[in-house]
């Protein structure tokens, strides 16, 4: 039994109390008689239920906001927490010395979390070994620190620190560690792929994204291809989407690229991107019925131009 044609929109409007009163009674009577439409209405109710996605606890949100502000302060020298600058301004030499000693003790007693939220620590022997190696490097670096300026100028930056007293003289410390690196890598290096993937998908720097995309186009790594697809379909900046598409259409008719370009036809507003999609898909002999359906499902603006571009290919079949 098929869903009654045309009722989906009316049922959605009825649910949201947007249906004109003159049509409401008729639809409500229909819901009493039609099981499928009644189930559709019921499903909309379940999608709206608070039990589906529970309300956050105010205390959780407060902690979240505090954590965000704390991280911002740690990353921005001008907004660094007042207690540290107050100590320095007071010029209490013994307080500065105590600070250096406390830093060293904390670093020696720690477990290191590299760039992962505290709820996501994995019980993975490879990751645990990585953490031990990096933890040891940080400890060695801290042992060389003699005064506050050594700690402040350390290339290792710590953020999002959480402390928990343990028995005896120990403290459990969890925090994030970052360090700026400069390296020369082979084009096939997995690390290069990782760096490019994160950069392609990082919306905080459009220039960085475009630069990463221009390099990413030269790699055949599947993760890089997936990142380019996501940028092409999901980035808010048109230049980024265009650039990602220009790199993807160089891939030899990969099924994921083909499906992504069909999505461009269905979901992208920009006409140029849709024309590029048609050119690639027709060059690689896509089923013309699929092509026609995708064009038809997309934005009506510019559709004539798309049909003109695709016409000879569609009629050839």
């Amino acid at each position, binding site marked *: 039994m098929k869903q009654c044609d045309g009722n989906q929109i009316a049922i959605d409007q009825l649910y949201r109390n947007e249906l004109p009163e003159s049509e409401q009674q008729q639809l409500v009577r229909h819901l009493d008689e039609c099981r499928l439409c009644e189930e559709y209405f019921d499903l909309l109710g379940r999608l709206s239920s608070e039990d*589906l996605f529970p309300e956050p606890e105010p205390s959780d949100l407060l902690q979240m906001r505090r954590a965000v502000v704390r991280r911002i302060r740690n990353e921005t020298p001008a907004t660094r927490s007042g207690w540290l600058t107050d100590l320095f301004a007071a010029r209490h030499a013994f307080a500065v010395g105590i600070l250096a000693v406390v830093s060293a003790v904390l670093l020696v007693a720690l477990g290191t979390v590299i760039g992962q939220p505290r709820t996501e620590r994995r019980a993975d022997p490879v990751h645990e070994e990585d953490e031990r190696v990096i933890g040891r490097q940080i400890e060695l670096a801290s042992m060389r620190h003699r005064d506050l300026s050594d700690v402040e100028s350390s290339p290792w930056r710590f953020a999002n620190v959480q402390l928990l007293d343990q028995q005896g003289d120990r403290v459990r410390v969890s925090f994030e560690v970052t360090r700026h690196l400069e390296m020369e890598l082979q084009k096939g290096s997995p690390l290069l792929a990782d760096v490019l993937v994160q950069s392609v998908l990082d919306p905080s720097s459009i220039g960085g994204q475009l630069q990463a995309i221009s390099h990413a186009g030269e790699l055949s790594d599947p993760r890089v291809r997936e990142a380019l697809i996501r940028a092409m379909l999901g980035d808010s900046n048109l230049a980024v989407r265009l650039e990602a598409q220009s790199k993807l259409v160089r891939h030899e008719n990969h099924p994921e690229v083909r499906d992504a370009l069909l999505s461009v036809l269905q979901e992208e507003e920009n006409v140029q991107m849709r024309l590029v999609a048609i050119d690639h898909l027709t060059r690689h002999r896509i089923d013309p019925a699929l092509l026609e359906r995708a064009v038809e499902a*997309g934005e009506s603006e510019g559709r004539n131009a798309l049909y003109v571009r695709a016409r000879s290919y569609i009629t050839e079949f």
Partner: protein
Amino acid sequence: MKSDDDLVRDVIEGNLEAFDELMKRYERLVYKVAYSFGGSREDALDITQSVFLKAFRSLSSFRSDANLKTWLMRITYNEGVNWVRKSGRTSDRHEPLDENIASDTNQEEELFAREKEQLLEQALRKLNERYRLALVLRYQQGLGIAEIASVLRCSEGVAKSMLFRGVRSLRQAIGT
């Protein structure tokens, strides 16, 4: 009460209290959408935190003629997708049902209702990410079609199509 634009200007000038105020305005909305990706309180909070950090770092690129809510929703979508890929989890958050079923009718009904809810949640999490976002924005947050289209950067017609395709996929998945 200050407008979003005024608060954004204050934040760019270095006022963290203004950013705290912005977070208070949109944290529930971001959390609920984040929950649809993470599937648990802890994961939703992690994603929400990432969203606001990303928003703070990108605020200088936010255009004053744009809508802050839709801009935040786009960041939430991207962070949610990134989180799912990075965590390597499938979209199946699944709490085991209590197997000690009493013969009490109310308990049976409760269990059945919970099972139905879990089925829907699992089906929702398996949906195409854009369809899922469209459904969450529409039915959990009450956003209009125009707003949803703006978040998804598509026409209103395509946004409607995503909603109905999403509901259809859900119905097929849960067998109604």
